[in-house]
C-alpha cells in the first residue's frame, strides 16, 4: 500500500514538474548576465548567405541560423553604420532577413548547439511603424514557451528574450514578427542583433543540484 502510494506520489511530482516547465518560461527585457553570444560579425560585413548559415558562439557553441524562406533567397548581413537606419547600438552587426532585393525571409530559427536557460536578441522591423515580435523556445522539438513584445509607434528596437526558470533546457529559439503597422511592411522583413544566451551561475547550479538530492532523499525515506 505504501509502495503504491509512493509510486503515485512520484508520478504526481513528475506531472507537476512537466506542467511547471511551461509556466517557468518568462519573458525578459535584456540579458543582464549574458554569458555567451553568437555574433553575426564573424560572417563579415555585407556578406550574403544562403537560407541557413552556421555561426559559432564566443565560447565555441556551434549554432545554426535558418530562415523560413523562400529557401532559395539569400540573407544579407550588415553593420548598422552602412546598411540599417534603425536604432540599434551604433556599430552592432545585424542579420537582416533580406538581401535588399525586395524579398524577405523571416522568421529566424536558431539552433544553439547547446542548452541554455536564457536566450534573446534585439530586433526591429524594416518598415517604420509599430510591430509585435515573438520568441519561442524549444528543447529539441519540444515547445517550452514563448514571449511576445510590442514596440512603440515608431517601431523602435525591442529586446526579445526569455528565460526558463526550471533550468538549462533551451536548445533552440525562433524569432519572428507577428504583425507590423507601417505602410507596405512585411513581417518576414526585420533585422536582429547578436543572439545572446545565459547559463545558470555555478552557485545556482549547486542550489538546483542540492534541491534535487533532497527530493531524492525524501522519496527514499518514504520507501
Amino acid at each position, binding site marked *: 500500500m505504501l509502495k503504491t502510494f509512493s509510486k503515485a506520489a512520484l508520478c504526481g511530482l513528475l506531472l507537476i514538474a512537466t506542467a511547471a516547465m511551461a509556466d517557468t518560461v518568462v519573458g525578459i527585457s535584456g540579458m543582464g548576465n549574458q554569458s555567451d553570444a553568437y555574433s553575426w560579425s564573424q560572417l563579415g560585413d555585407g556578406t550574403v548567405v544562403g537560407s541557413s548559415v552556421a555561426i559559432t558562439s564566443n565560447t565555441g557553441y556551434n549554432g545554426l541560423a535558418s530562415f523560413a524562406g523562400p529557401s532559395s533567397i539569400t540573407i544579407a548581413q550588415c553593420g548598422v553604420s*552602412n546598411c540599417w*537606419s534603425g536604432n540599434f547600438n551604433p556599430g552592432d552587426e545585424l542579420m537582416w532577413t533580406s538581401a535588399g532585393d*525586395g524579398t524577405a525571409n523571416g522568421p529566424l530559427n536558431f539552433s544553439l548547439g547547446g542548452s541554455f536557460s536564457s536566450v534573446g536578441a534585439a530586433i526591429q522591423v524594416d518598415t517604420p511603424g509599430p510591430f509585435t515580435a515573438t520568441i519561442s523556445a524549444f528543447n529539441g522539438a519540444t515547445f517550452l514557451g514563448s514571449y511576445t513584445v510590442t514596440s512603440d509607434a515608431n517601431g523602435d528596437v525591442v529586446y526579445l528574450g526569455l528565460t526558463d526558470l526550471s533550468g538549462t533546457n533551451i536548445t533552440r529559439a525562433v524569432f519572428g514578427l507577428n504583425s507590423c503597422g507601417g505602410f507596405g511592411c512585411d513581417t518576414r522583413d526585420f533585422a536582429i542583433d547578436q543572439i545572446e544566451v545565459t547559463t545558470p551561475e555555478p552557485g545556482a547550479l549547486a542550489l538546483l543540484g542540492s534541491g534535487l538530492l533532497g527530493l531524492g532523499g525524501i522519496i527514499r525515506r518514504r520507501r
Partner: protein
Amino acid sequence: MKRSVMFLLCAALLCFSCAAFAQDDSQLPDPSTLPQFNPQPGEPGDGGPVISAGVVVTAKNASANGTGIPLWSYQVTSPVDGNTYTGVMVGRSPLVRGARTTSVPVVIIPVIVKAQQGFITDPTSGDPGCLQGNPGNAVSLTLQSPILNNVNWNFGPTFMGNTQYPDATQRANFWSTVGTTNGGFHTLLGPITVAPTQSIQGTVPGTTVVPNQSQIVAFSAGTCGAITTGATNRKGILNIMDINYFDPFAEATLAALHVPATSFAMFLFYDTVMTSGPPVVTGGTLNPQCCILGYHSDNDDTSPNLITTYGVVDFDRGGIFSATQDTSVMAHEVQEWMDDPLGNNLTPAWGHIGQQSGCQNNLEEGDPLSGTLYPPVPMPNGFTYHLQDVGPYFSWFFRTPSTGVNGWYDNIHKLTTDAGPVCH
C-alpha cells in the same frame, strides 16, 4: 498574331526606309525653303498617355515575382488638402530601414527619323559642329554621359556619392532617411545595352508636306553644325514628328525586339521633337501642340499582362529651346520614369511653374523645373554635359516637411518653398 502583324509592319517600314534613305542629294529641297520653326514662349514640354489603375496592380505583381521592373509603394497624406495619396516608384523603398541597391537594365534604341522633305536626323551619325567637336554621336555620348556613368555629386555642402545622376537625385530626394545609411541606398541604371537602330518615316508619298497628314516634317531651326550637304544631321534642320504616329511604332518595336519587361527601354532621337498631331496643320502653320521633347510611358495597351516601361528622348543640339541641350531631356525623362513609372502617381494640384502654365496633379518630377539646368558636367570623354535640375523632390509635391538633402526641394536649391496652396 497581333505581335506578328506588328513585326511585319515594322519590317516593312524598315525596308521602305532603306530604299527611301538612299535618296539622291539633289532631290532634297533647299533648307532655306523649309518652314521656319520659332519656339513658343515658355518651356518645352513632355507628354504621355494617362494610365489606368489596373496597370499598377499588374506592374506590382510583376515586380513582386521578378518579371517586371522593381517597384516600391508609398502612401502619404498631404497637409495641403488632407488627402492620402499612394503610388509606386522604381527600385526599392528609401523609407525603410534596410538599405537597398537596385539595378534596372536599360535598352537604348536609337531611332533614325526621316522627314517628309527627306532630311534625316540620325543619333548614330556624328555631328561635330554641334557636339563640341566631339567625334562621337548621340548614342556614344549618351553611353558616356553622367546619367549612365558615375560622377562625384555634391548638392550644396552634401556629398551624394560617386554615382549616376538619377541615383544621386533619388538619394537627394529622400536624403532624410537614406542619408543615415551612409551610401547604402542606390537606384542604378544598368547594365546598358544598345538595340539595333530603328528607322521611321511618314506614310505620305513624295517630298511635299501635306498639312494635317505628313507625320514627320523638317523645319529650319538652329544654327549649329557644319554639315551643309547631304540629308543627315544637316545644319539648321529640326525634325518634328507626330507623337501619335511614333508611339505605336515604339510599342511595336518593343515587341519586335523582345525588350524584356524587367528593363527600361529608352528610344533615342537626335534633334527631333514631337507634336500632338501632325506637325503642320491647316494653313501650313506649325501645330500649336508643339513641342514635346520627350515622354515616358508603358506598353499596357499592347501588352497588358507584361508591361514594359519606356522613355523617348531627344538628344538635343541645343540653341533652339531654352536651357535644353544634349542630355537635358534624358535627365528629365529618366527621373520622371523613376518616380512615376506608370504615369499615374497623383498629387495635390500644383502649377504655374516650369513647363506647366496651368495646373497639373501628378508626380512628374521633371516638369516644374523644365528650363532649369544643373551646372555643366564635364566628363572624361571631353564632352561637357547639360542636365536638367530635376526635381522638385517628393515633399515639394505633397507639401510635407522636406525629405530632401539640405532640406531642399531640388538639386540646386532653386526652389525655396514647396508647391504651396492647391493650384486652381
